[in-house]
């Protein structure tokens, strides 16, 4: 270890060492359990325990010294052939490792309290570790006898230490910011060069004019004109020289900034291994608790991942791995009965592709039954039978990400409480990533995460939407196309365009993002994006160019804003909002599937003149479905995304009917309706409350709050919905 360590106390350094050794021990022990005769691994574990003991001694944590010493003794006994590795011994060593891991979370001032609280436990562990364990020892060795002849796995091969430098995260952030700024700043010279070029061109014109004047003017001015021409020629020469110099300078600066940026970016990148070291142990413990047998195989452990991404990945990966073991992996008896190996394999694989980080979590368990989901979709009223029947497996798996949607027959302590996959999806989306499920019943399930490699600088296409700049990261763009208006066709699901023989749904990005609809134009500017089998053409007003953007988070007070990932400044200083293209695609797919977006596009051409309705719902799909139906029936519709915005709009506008959801973030529908009913001017406003919550008690709560009617969301596509609207407005 080298570098300036002055900012760290001895205890900080100890904690870092304890973390490193602790992770190695925990991971090594899990590996040792399935390969107990691996002598190299035993030696490595013994050395790690020994180092930990020495480090603890230096900072005076005696209790840790004793435990690490006992761990070391246990390993030495195995090395000397005086003891064997058994599951019980592994448990004891893991328990000791867990105890030492607690130190990582402590402040130095808390050591005494920690020692007092753990004396008995540490003594007991040390005693256990020094007591011979004989249970199933010979069986364990015999079972794994063959393994001893297998060379050590690649993961336990010696790793060349390239040396490391410790940098505080705040300082690294600062360097990163500066490097990013310098990269962006260097690109600004492009503008200067363009300006110089323009000046040179203008100067050339000036010379031409002078020549013309010389031909026309009287001979007396000839000398003056000659002089002017000479000066103009000289200055043009100078300008050209400056431009050449600037080109050279620009090239060097860009190269320098790129190198600086790449170096710093590299220092931010950590091997994937570093963020997942706890998972083999977790899978092992969890499967044992559940009476199952499973091991975790890791591929791509050396793949570099931005440390922020790596840190934020921990929670979703934890949940998905737990989900695999809890729901995916069968019991040993079931596996054997199905002709599968007794021990299930869960694979965690990371790789880079197309400028994105891909992470796969794959199990060889029972898979997901799409028919089970389809039944649930119908039972829960998300779609009627005919619609559910038409859903593909992939579409059905999307339902697993809905809050509260779980196919688990029994809720367990591990997962299946209905608060899992939707949270996973939210976390992944907050990292500008996406998650998909694929599964083969009886064979297993795969979660596929795609994430940005880094979250600091993105190269993006800047597009104009409603007179403002929006950035679309290039990693999400297949290509851009300008299409003639005549080539747009109408289909059942909306507008379609054909590009190079491929057909794409043409979607109004402005409408999806609830901005102004894209301006009509002879030339349609489109961004082709999405996966191969369901790519779409997102329509924007115009293209403004391509730029490197230094990513900044949006002010936290805005919360998670649909369709946006972050903000940045353009080279001109103008702010730009960076679009979460995956999220736009999700909304677009939902809207197209509902037919809402297509209908909306068609209805844009007509001018609504009927009564004015305010629709308040936090789901864009539901909002747009209601808007489409109401607009089709001649109503003028405004929308709001939650109770607070609904309340604001209601106060400012004149509405004949309010339709509101119940479950919304911030001010929910019940609070919203109670608030408005407290005002005299809204006493008689008809209010339709619409919700998936359709039990009698919930209905009554809505009516008690002041709703005129309470409808189930299941009826939105039925005539009952529009009939109710007509009826409420007739009684106005």
């Amino acid at each position, binding site marked *: 270890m080298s570098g300036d360590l002055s900012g760290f106390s001895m205890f900080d350094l100890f904690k870092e060492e304890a973390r490193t050794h602790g992770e190695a021990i925990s991971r090594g022990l899990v590996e040792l359990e399935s390969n107990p005769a691996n002598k190299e691994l035993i030696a490595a574990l013994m050395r790690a325990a020994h180092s930990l003991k020495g480090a603890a001694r230096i900072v005076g944590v005696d209790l840790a010294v004793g435990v690490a010493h006992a761990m070391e003794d246990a390993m030495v006994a195995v090395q000397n052939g005086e003891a064997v590795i058994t599951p019980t011994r592994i448990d004891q060593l893991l328990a000791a490792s867990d105890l030492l891991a607690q130190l990582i979370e402590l402040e130095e001032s808390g050591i005494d309290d920690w020692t007092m609280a753990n004396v008995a436990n540490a003594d007991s562990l040390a005693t256990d570790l020094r007591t011979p364990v004989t249970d199933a020892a010979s069986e364990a060795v015999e079972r794994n006898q063959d393994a001893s002849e297998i060379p050590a796995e690649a993961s336990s091969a010696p790793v060349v230490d390239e040396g490391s430098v410790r940098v505080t995260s705040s300082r690294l952030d600062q360097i990163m910011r500066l490097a990013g700024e310098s990269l962006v700043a260097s690109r600004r010279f492009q503008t200067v060069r363009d300006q110089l070029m323009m000046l040179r061109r203008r100067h050339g014109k000036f010379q031409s004019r002078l020549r013309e004047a010389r031909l026309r003017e009287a001979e007396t001015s000839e000398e003056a004109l000659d002089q002017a021409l000479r000066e103009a020629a000289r200055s043009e020469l100078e300008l050209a020289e400056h431009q050449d110099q600037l080109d050279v300078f620009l090239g060097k600066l860009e190269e320098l900034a790129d190198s600086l940026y790449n170096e710093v970016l590299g220092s931010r990148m950590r091997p994937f291994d570093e963020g997942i070291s706890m998972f083999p142990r977790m899978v092992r413990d969890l499967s044992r608790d559940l009476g199952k047998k499973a091991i975790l195989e890791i591929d791509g452990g050396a793949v570099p991942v931005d440390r922020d991404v790596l840190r934020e990945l921990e929670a979703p990966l934890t949940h998905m791995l737990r989900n695999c073991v809890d729901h995916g992996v069968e019991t040993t008896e079931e596996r054997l009965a199905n002709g599968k190996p007794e021990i299930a394999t869960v694979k965690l694989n990371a790789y880079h592709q197309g400028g994105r980080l891909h992470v796969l979590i794959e199990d060889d368990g029972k898979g997901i039954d799409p028919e089970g989901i389809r039944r649930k979709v119908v039972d829960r009223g998300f779609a009627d039978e005919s619609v559910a029947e038409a859903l593909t497996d992939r579409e059905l798996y999307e339902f697993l990400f809905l809050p509260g949607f779980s196919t688990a027959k029994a809720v367990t302590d591990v997962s299946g409480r209905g608060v899992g996959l939707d949270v996973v999806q939210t976390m992944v989306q907050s990292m500008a990533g996406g998650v998909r499920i694929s599964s083969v019943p009886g064979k297993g399930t795969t979660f596929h995460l795609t994430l940005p490699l880094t979250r600091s600088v993105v190269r993006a296409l800047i597009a104009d939407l409603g*007179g403002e700049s929006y950035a679309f990261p290039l990693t999400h763009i297949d290509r851009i196309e300008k299409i003639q208006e005549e080539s747009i066709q109408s289909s059942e699901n909306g507008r379609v365009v054909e590009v190079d023989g491929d057909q794409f749904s043409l979607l109004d990005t402005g409408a999806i993002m609830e901005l102004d609809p894209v301006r009509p134009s002879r030339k349609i500017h489109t961004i082709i994006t999405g996966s191969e089998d369901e790519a779409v053409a997102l329509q924007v007003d115009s293209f403004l160019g391509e730029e490197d953007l230094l990513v900044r988070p949006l002010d936290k007070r805005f919360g998670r804003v*649909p369709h*946006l990932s972050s903000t940045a400044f353009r080279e001109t200083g103008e702010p730009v*909002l960076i679009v979460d293209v995956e999220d736009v695609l999700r909304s677009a797919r939902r809207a197209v599937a509902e037919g809402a977006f297509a209908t909306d596009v068609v209805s844009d051409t007509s001018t609504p003149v009927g009564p004015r309705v305010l629709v308040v719902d936090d789901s864009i799909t539901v909002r747009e479905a209601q808007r489409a139906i109401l607009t089709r029936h001649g109503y003028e519709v405004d929308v709001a995304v939650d109770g607070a915005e609904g309340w604001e709009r209601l106060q400012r506008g004149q509405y004949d009917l309010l339709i509101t959801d119940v479950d919304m973030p911030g001010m929910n529908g019940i609070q919203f309706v109670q608030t408005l009913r407290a005002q005299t001017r809204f006493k008689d406003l008809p209010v339709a409350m619409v919700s998936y919550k359709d039990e009698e008690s919930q209905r009554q709560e809505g009516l008690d709050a002041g709703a005129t009617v309470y409808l189930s969301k299941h009826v939105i596509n039925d005539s009952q919905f529009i009939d109710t609207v007509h009826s409420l407005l007739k009684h106005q």
Partner: protein
Amino acid sequence: MQASMINQGSPINPSRKAVSSRHQNEVVQWLEALRSPESAALPSHPSLLFFRHAGEELALPAVIVGSVEMVGFTHRVPHREGPTLRGLAATNGDLLPLIDLSNAVGLDPDHQEDDRVPRLLVLSPLQSIESRWTTIVDIVHGVEMSDPETWSTSDTTSPYVKALVQTPRGTAKLLETDALLDSLAAVFQ
């Protein structure tokens, strides 16, 4: 492209721009002086930033005003735009929430000022980024000390008005800071 370079209302004429620029410098100097430790020790009358907006003469305690700036770029935020929350304003390398003061404190949002010299006020009540707001006002007059003894509270009916303050330009409504900040906080709830 609109580029959101907000300069609403009448264009700024050059002479006014010069005056205003001088004015702005004075405001900045005042604010700096008021934030200095020495000024904190002064047993003084509070300093108020006087400005005109939506046809009303208004004032805010200078201590909550972080800066007064030329109006630069702004940007709407999809799904979050409302009558009060207008989007983001760029200021000194930050993007801060931009609010419509008229809606926040119940002024006439449709009022058009004839002689408008718009300025961006950065409100910074807690001196932290996450408590900063921006708003565009029609005209900034400057910072003046004011004796609370001369304030009148008898005619204030709005919860957003703390007192009426006499100035050479007429009566100014001193905005109630807490109520204003509560109103701003509510736009995100």
